[in-house]
């Protein structure tokens, strides 16, 4: 639905993005993840036709964003990062204007506006002037304007920034509800958001793509080891020795929780699932098994590794 090929953008001599290539399938939600100044907004501005790329192409539903710009933009809804709105209009007037400019027929404008307001839950503020709205409600108006003409593709630049926790959940539900009918690209800094909402993730760092995959595959790919967390009531030294004796164990550490109770972290090969073995061992020795579970390597760890020049588990060097 959206295809981005070798996109490069120079601001003067500074390369904001270089050779960015990815595609988004119809109905998919793609997360665009990266640290500040990675080039997320720049990429989105190019895909939406706001600025031309220095090199490379982007197409929306087969229409080239520079060659067939208007046709491509007709299929797009865009929420810019700063949510710039015409403040002196009421929500309803503003959305009606957006609908008309996007080519919604005059007679269906009111219905489109009502639908967009209902799905972003701003109907009760329909006649408020936009400059009087709180940040969260402005954000919703921004999402509503991106939706008002029912575009096939939605591009949302940090849609949950500045919202309160309840609103964040609502907006995420809203975006999840778009899956299937709309193709969505959203940028974010918030990792759990990607895990919760997105089908696939593009991780971009310093203007180049460092990974594209599903959140699960990304964590699996980077995960070389498995970690099991176990909490046991028993003597410290014999416990550590016994756990180290399990097959495939690389490292065991223990931390005292209370008198005679220890929380241990067992690091092993990825191929080994130590949970059953560890449980059997503790019970066989007559110690008290209090808690047992695996520690999945989170997307956060993956992200940290991919977006920092030095790998996280090695000392940071000054080489640049």
């Amino acid at each position: 639905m959206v295809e981005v090929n070798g996109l490069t953008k120079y601001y003067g001599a500074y390369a904001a993005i270089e050779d960015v290539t990815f595609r988004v399938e119809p109905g998919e939600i793609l997360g665009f993840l990266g640290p500040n100044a990675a080039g997320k907004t720049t990429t989105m501005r190019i895909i939406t036709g706001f600025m031309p790329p220095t090199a490379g192409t982007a197409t929306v539903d087969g229409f080239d964003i520079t060659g067939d710009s208007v046709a491509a933009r007709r299929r797009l809804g865009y929420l810019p990062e700063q949510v710039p709105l015409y403040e002196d209009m009421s929500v309803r007037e503003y959305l009606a204007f957006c609908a008309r400019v996007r080519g919604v027929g005059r007679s269906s404008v009111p219905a489109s506006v009502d639908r967009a307001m209902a799905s972003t839950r701003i109907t009760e503020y329909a006649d408020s002037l936009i400059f009087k709205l709180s940040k969260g409600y402005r954000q919703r108006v921004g999402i509503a304007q991106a939706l008002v003409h029912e575009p096939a593709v939605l591009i949302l630049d940090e849609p949950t920034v500045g919202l309160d926790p309840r609103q964040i959940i609502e907006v995420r539900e809203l975006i999840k509800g778009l899956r299937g009918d709309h193709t969505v690209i959203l940028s974010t800094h918030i990792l759990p958001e990607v895990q919760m909402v997105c089908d696939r993730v593009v991780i971009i760092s310093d203007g180049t793509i460092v990974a594209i995959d599903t959140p699960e595959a990304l964590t699996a790919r980077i995960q070389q080891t498995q970690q099991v967390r176990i909490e046991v009531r028993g003597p410290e030294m014999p416990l550590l020795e016994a756990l180290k004796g399990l097959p495939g164990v690389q490292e065991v550490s223990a931390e005292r929780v209370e008198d005679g109770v220890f929380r241990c972290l067992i690091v092993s090969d990825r191929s080994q699932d130590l949970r059953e073995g560890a449980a059997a061992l503790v019970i066989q020795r007559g110690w008290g098994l209090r808690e047992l579970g695996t520690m999945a390597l989170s997307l956060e760890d993956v992200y940290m590794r991919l977006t920092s020049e030095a790998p996280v588990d090695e000392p940071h060097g000054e080489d640049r």
Partner: protein
Amino acid sequence: MRTAYAIAEREIRSYFASPIGWIVLGAFMALVGWFFWAAIAYAGIGEMRMWFSNTTIVLIILLPALTMRLLAEERQRGTIEILMTSPVTDTQAVLGKFLGAWGFYCVMLLMTLQFPITLTRLATPDRGPFYSGYLGMALFGGTFIAVGLLISAMTRNQVVAYVGTLFVLLFLWLLSWAGSGDAWWQTLLTYISVPSHLDSFAKGMIDTRDVFFYLSFIGGMLFLTVRALAAWKWR
């Protein structure tokens, strides 16, 4: 065209929703009203030629205040990002902005219709120059608005847009003074100067050459504005 019309309509509403629209409208009515009644009181003139030419000076000061925000504000607030990622061509956007400001200006002109109406009540003047004069004023204001729109496309600062437009309009106005003479360059300057084409309208003549001058001047400015907008994207 539908898109340009939607943009123009929004622009006109926004003048009425903002203090700047009302200030310009109020100041305009106060100044041109004063010129009208002063002319009647001192000279008892039963025609409007003098009034039309005085009004041009008022427009030099007030129209830049209407045009300064057109594109500069969009850029400064960032709203241009939503506008230009909508399926709107640069030409439609520029045309919409122009028609919005020009539409508001026409409302200002309509409010002054009370003056010629008053004249026809007080005496029996020749009405021809009124009609042609108003047509001339509508076109003339259009040229000023087109200049203001172009300058508003070149900056994101509204104050800069106002001062820049005021300067250019004053310059265009002064050209008609510098051009009073018979040498070829003076004729040329007179031709270029925007207000000089208003005279014949005010006298009651609709010269197609003047209409052509105004329309092509507006067209040229709008074309340059479209180019300025495109150049800004490639910055």
